[in-house]
Each structure stands twice: as structure tokens, then as C-alpha cells.
């Protein structure tokens, strides 16, 4: 099974304390400086939609979003362009990209804190990965291998989303913090 278009949502800890107008400003600065890998294009403001993407930075290869899906804020990295490499590589790439922006936002907003123990993996392609037990079975080895790489063999729980209409998604929870990728 080919896992492409990996999305990673790293949840905000506690309530969102940051003014989203300020996040929009940061997104515009990042676009102006093309400060992240890939082409950054535009900012979308969907704060008027309940439990939606809220504030979105659109890119060519990937979008970044301070997403409020499920009424829970988190930094969502949405990979659009396919990537070479193994499934584990692609999971890791998405996770690193998401966490990189989390760290950047934390540095700009001292009250903003992203969880180091809880995030969500989504495969944004029903063609490749329909939300079925078979997909879970097939994807599990790569997911576990990826998680071993960031959690230092800590016990991690995986909770799949079981609604067949939704995308294949797994909620990841750990008792300890993940090992931080180096900030750059």
C-alpha cells in the first residue's frame, strides 16, 4: 500500500490563546519570505465556519492550517504533492514539516503550546487508502515504524477513525513526549 498525501495534525494544548489575526500576519510574512520548503501562495480565512480549517496557508506542495476540525485546534500539515520514498519516510516528512511550523509559531506566541504527545495521522486520498480495516492492517507496520522513530519505544496508542465515509485516520497518543526533530 502506497501512503501518499499524508496529513498530520498536532493538537494545541488547552484552549487556543492566540489572536488568529496575529497568526494570519505570520502566515503572510512566511509567504513573503517563502520561508518554508515548497511554494507558499496565499492565506485563507475561514473563521466564520464552525469547526473548519479556520486559518489556512495555502501552498503548492502542501497547505498549513491552524485547523479547528472537530472543534479542536491543531496545526494541520496537508501534503498535496506526491513524494518518493517509503511510507515511513512520507509519514516522517509530514510530521517534521508540521512540527517545524508548530515550533515556529510557539516561538512567536509564547502562550501557544502544541502537544508533544498527541496528534493525528490522516491519509488524504480515499483512492489509495479507503477507511477500512484492511487499510489499517496494511498501513500499520509503516505507522508503527514511524512512531518508533519519534517516541523512543514508549507505549503509544493508536485509535483509528471507524466512520467509513471519513478519510483513513489514526489518533496517536503517548504517555511521554516525542523526541523532537531538530528545529531549523
Amino acid at each position, binding site marked *: 500500500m*502506497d501512503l*501518499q*498525501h499524508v496529513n498530520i495534525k498536532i493538537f494545541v494544548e488547552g484552549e487556543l490563546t492566540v489572536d488568529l*489575526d496575529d497568526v*494570519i*500576519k505570520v502566515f*503572510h510574512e512566511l*509567504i*513573503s519570505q*517563502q520561508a518554508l520548503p515548497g*511554494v507558499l*501562495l*496565499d*492565506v*485563507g*480565512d*475561514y*473563521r*466564520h*465556519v*464552525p*469547526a*473548519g*480549517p479556520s486559518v*489556512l496557508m*495555502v501552498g*503548492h506542495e502542501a*497547505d498549513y492550517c491552524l485547523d479547528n*476540525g*472537530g472543534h479542536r485546534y491543531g496545526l494541520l500539515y496537508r501534503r*498535496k*504533492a*506526491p513524494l518518493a520514498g517509503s511510507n515511513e519516510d512520507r509519514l516522517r516528512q509530514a510530521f517534521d514539516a508540521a512540527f517545524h511550523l508548530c515550533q515556529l509559531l510557539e516561538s512567536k506566541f509564547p502562550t501557544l503550546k502544541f502537544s508533544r504527545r498527541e496528534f493525528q495521522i490522516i491519509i*488524504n*486520498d*480515499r*483512492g*489509495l487508502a479507503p477507511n477500512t480495516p484492511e487499510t489499517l492492517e496494511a498501513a500499520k507496520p509503516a505507522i508503527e515504524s514511524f512512531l518508533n522513530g519519534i517516541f523512543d519505544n514508549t507505549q503509544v496508542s493508536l485509535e483509528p477513525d471507524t466512520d467509513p*465515509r*471519513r*478519510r483513513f485516520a489514526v489518533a496517536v497518543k503517548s504517555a511521554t513526549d516525542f523526541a523532537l526533530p531538530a528545529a531549523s
Partner: protein
Amino acid sequence: MKASNELWKTRLTGQITDGLAEEIDTFEMQIELRRQDKMDEKVFAETRLRRGAYGQRYDNGQRHDGSESKTLPYDTTKHTKGPDTVWDAPGMLRIKIPYGGMNPEQLEVLAELAEEYSDDIAHITTRQDFQLHYVHIENTPTIMRRLAAVGITTREACGNSIRNVCGCPFAGVCQDEAFDVTPYADAFTYFMLGHPDAQNFGRKFKPSFSGCHQHSCGLAAMHDMGMTAVVREVDGERKRGFRVVVGGGLGAVPRQAKLFDEFLPVEELLPIAQAMSKVFGKHGEKKMRSRARLKFLVDKWGIDKFKEEVLAERANLTPDPRWTEYLEHIEEETEKPSRPPGDLPALNGNERMNHWVKTNLREQRQEGYVAATVALPLGDLTSDQLRSLADIVRQFTNGTIRTTVEQNFVIRWVSKADVPALFNALDAVGLSEPGASNILDIVACPGTDTCKLGISSSRGLAAEIRSRLAETSFKLDQAVQDLHIKVSGCFNSCGQHHVADIGFFGANRTVKGFKVPHFQVVLGGQWEENAGSYGLPIVAIPSKKVPNALDRITSFYLTQKQPNERFVKFVKRIGKTKMREILEDLAEVPDYEGNEDFYADWGDPRQYSIGDIGKGECAGEVVSQYEFETAAAERIVFGAQVSLEEGDAQKAGEDAYRAMIKAAKALVLVQYDDVTEEDPDEVVDEFKERYVDTELFLDPFAGSKFADYLFDAHQQVGRTFDADSAHHLIEETQLFIEAVHSCYNRVRTQGLNR
């Protein structure tokens, strides 16, 4: 590009009709041909438009970041997907929903597509379509296949074609309709879709169906071809037909449709539509895009000659069994409920539910049922909400839901007994917004968010007004609650500002060397009676003061209105001079220093720009001659409106022309100061030589359209004006002045003024 595109092609084989599958395969091949530079970029652009794949802001690969325009680092080795359109730049996909009719399976597929190919948002347009934004061209065939598998097409959603067929979303359940227009709209859609006689248009053609004259659910009067259901007694028998109007349209210069036939028998609907398409294809303007809509042909010929030509064409058509086949299967009701009728239970003091019931429910003509409007902020909803809505529609109805021209949904055939449960189900997923079709239900086009033509942030302004009104709207006086607000990001009227009680459209101004986002305030439009009259702009207000302007207008209305006086009548009685007077101080723009917020648009922290910002004369410097002259032109055209209001069409037309000359002179003066408006010929000649021949005045998108307004008006000096022609010239003058401002901004910032 999605990794699964090939997979879907195989998987959906057999689930799509052969014809449609072949069309999509062909489009996919055309994408490949263009990718390999084996197809001309202009031809490809029109090809993709006819498939619904539209351009989006920044797709020329440039983006202004508030201080300068920067090139987006796309892969430039790829070919374009149209003139000045980068291959990898995301675009918008418009999805046709004929008469807004949908079912739960279609909602679910849209949810999937919004998630997988767009930004998790589906947007309903003012013509009942859906739009997905930030879509990559190479994914569009797969999206089309997935839509086709549930009976939806994007074919002819854009381009020079017959666009989505609009229809009253209450058709079949409305208390006032003559009959249910649904099957006729449906037959029209599929008869004309891809019809060979409708492939040679110079511009788009928009049809619409309404069940009654008095309500605005179908907006027949503002369409190229508007049909209103009528029943007439013929030889003692009740016969169905349509009152047909033609040549209506909003756009930059709106036109009220003209009466084509008081009663067109239903049997003649499709042949007349076919004949009209042939006439439009043969005789409509092809070269001058700005004059290519059907309204200009109707204007040019007059309605009598137009009708004569259509009837002559009709007489020569080869009979087609499809013209009447569908009539044999038309039943009185096209839909059935899934739940028994009931009575509305006591709502037990739930204030939110009471408010929603009051504003969002409409009694059906079938006793015991209501139609419930799901009001969507700015026409947007998420994929999760779409799926929930599909569940709700299945739970409470037989799958009967439609989109509306006010960017909402209507769930039909809800048993009154189910109303509290329906409200709770909608409320649980954030879809219980009250205030459907009232002041809170603001319509806005995409504006600067995603549209290439946007001047100001229509969605930003609409969101700001909404959030200010959200808490208090239902406590407002009913007369204010009933107002319709519509916002367009530019003069093109995709937000339908002309037919709102209070409309706004985006404009830009240069104030002491800085650009400032503005909105023109449009008053005098009428939403009722299928968009019965069009408003005119009275004053441009800086974007950040527009909410204050709205407060002023509504407070003034409340204190000065007569009992039961509707807003459109109130504006007419009070007069535009007074209405402008109460807003005039808000038109002032404070100096930049310390007021930087005025120099950025709503929801966008970048310093406002439509190009590079040139810091010229700073605060306190002398106001340039240009500014004096354009201010005078604006005063004169406003005076023209007042004359029109007072019934003096001749003076109105003449003053509008004078204002145009004044504005042209303002631009000429930037380069050459020895010109006087005493000699309009000289002004026009100088203007042509310095700004049109040099292409400085040409609009990046509209080309010479606005200059042509001046040349046309100048050529017709001394003509006689009636109310209609004076109204048009005022509209054109307003747009010409806006174009003068844009040109001045370009000239200043690009340093080409000498």
C-alpha cells in the same frame, strides 16, 4: 497531482454514462496535450473554462506582499494553462447544480472532493453552483469522474456557454407559485447542455426559472433568459406557460430583462431556447467581449426585432422529439415526503430555536410541512458539515435539498412535527444559523480572497458586518432585519450588489500617495419581484468605515421611515442627495501616520495595494489637480443620479457624459496641462493618444472596455435620453471614473506619467 488519479479512472469505469466518460477522457487528453505544448494556450483556456476549471488570484505567478510585487517560485519550465496563467497555480472548479437540486449521495461526494482536492471548504455561489478553490488542473478529470458517478457535471459551468440553469429552490412546495418549474428547468438543462446550437457564443448565457413573479427566489429579471410560471385559460382549458424575459443581467452595467413573451406555452420552451441560442450565436458580438452578452444584442436591435429573428429561426428548426417528450412524464409533484405531516410542537422557550423557526422556516403549500433554510455564513461549509447534512436530509426527508441564490440550502418536505429535532440536529453541527434571507444573511462574492478581478475584500467586509450583527440582529427592528446586504469585490456584481437594499462594491482610491481600499455604497436596488430594480452607487467609503456607514443608513432609515415603508421606497422618497449627505464625512480618509489600519483591507494585514505602493505626496501636501478634477467628476455623476431620480433623464444623461469628460481630462492633465473641457473633442483626442494608444488605460482584464464607454458617449453627443439610457450612461460613467482611478494608480506607481 493526486497519486490516485489513474486508480479512480479504472474504479469508476461503468459508473459513468459513456458520453460523459468520453468527454472527460478527452479533456484529460487535452490537459496532456497542453502540458506538452501541443495545444494552443488560448484554446486550452477556453476548453478548460467550458469544463468549469477557472483561474484564481495570483495564477500569473505574481503576488504583492504589501510592499512589492514578488514572483512566486513556481516551476517555470512548465507550459502555461492559458495566457499569463502558470501551470501549477491552483484554480477554482465550478460545479453546476441545475436549479440547486441535490441528493444526500451528491453531498457526500462533494464532501470527499472538498477534502481531498481543495481546502476542506465547499462554497455555494449566487447562481446555485458549488465552487472548490485551490484545485490543481491535473486533478480536475478525476474530480469530474467522481462527480459524474453521482450525476453531476461541470460541463459549461464557465466559458462562453449556457451556464447553470437557476431555479426557485421552493419550486413544488411554494404557496405562491403558478406551478412547479422543476421538470421544465431540468428538461432545459439537459436539452441545452452541449447542444450544437449553443457552442458559438461570444459570451455566457444565463437562464433562470421562477414559479411566481413577486418573490426573488429565481431572479428571473436579471437573467439572459428568465422564465416565470404562468397559467392561462385557453379554450376553456388551463394551460401552462412561461412569461419569458430576455437580455437581463448584472455585471458592470446592469440591464433589466425585456419582455419577450407574456405567455410562451410550455411546448414551445425548448424550441424557443434553441432558436434564441442560434440567434445569439449568429448575431451576438464576438470581438468586443465587453459588449458580447445577450443584453447588448437586445439593446442594439430592440426587443421587437430580436423577437422577430428568434421566431424566424424557430420556424426553420428541424423538429426534435425532445422538445415535448418530457411533458408526458410531468406529474403534479416531483417529490414525496418520507415522514407524515404534523403540527409544530411547543418550543418550550428555547430562544435560539424560536428565532430560527421565525426566520428560517417557510410553510409549504402541502399542509403539515415546512421548508427549512440552512443559512451558511458567506456560502461556506466544511466536508464534515456536508456529510452531516446528508445524514440529516436522509433522516427527515426523502433526500430533498436544494441550494439557493442566497448561498444557502433549503431542506424541503420537513414534517412540522420534526422541526425541533431538525433544529437540534443542525445545531449539533453548526448549521443552525438564524436570519435566513435577512440582514445577517449577507451575500458576498469571493473578492480579493480568490478572484483575479477582486479590488477589495468583499468576504472580509461581509464577515466583519456579520460578526457585528450576529449577537444583536434579532433584536433589531423588523424593518432593519428584513434588509438585504450584498457585497461584490469589484464592479462586476458577482455579489449582486445592484439588487440589494444596501449593496457595496469594491473600489480603490489613492489618498496622498497611498492606496486605500474602498467600497461604493449602492442604494435603490430591489431584491423582491425577482430583482425588480437596480441600485446606483452614491459614494465611495473607505473599507474600514463601511460598518459605520451601514449603522448610519439603518439608524437613519429607522428614525425617518414612514409606517410599513420598505427601504427601496424610503430611499426613493428621501432622495440620494440626503442619503449621500449622511455618509459624506465617512468618505474622508485619515492620514496614514497613526491610521495604518485604514490602508489595509478587512482580514488582510498587508498594506493595501493593487500593484506596488508609491509613497508620493505626504500628509499636508497640496492636493493634485488630478484629485480635484476626479472629485468634481464624481460630484457631477452623482448630480446626474439626482436628476434621474427627479425624472429629468435628459439632464442626467448629459451630466453623466460631462462627468466622463471631466474624468478623462483629469488623466490628461497628469501628462499635459493645456487641455480644457470646453473642448471635449480635444479631451477625447488627447486621452486617446496619451492613454489608449499607449495602452496605459487598458484594464488588465477588461481591456479597452472602459475607454470604449467614453468613445461611445462622445460619438453620441446630442442624443436624446430616456430613463433607461440615462441609467446605463450613469453606470458606465461610474465605471469609467473607477478605471481612471486605477489607471492613475498604475501610472503613478510605475513612473510612466511623463
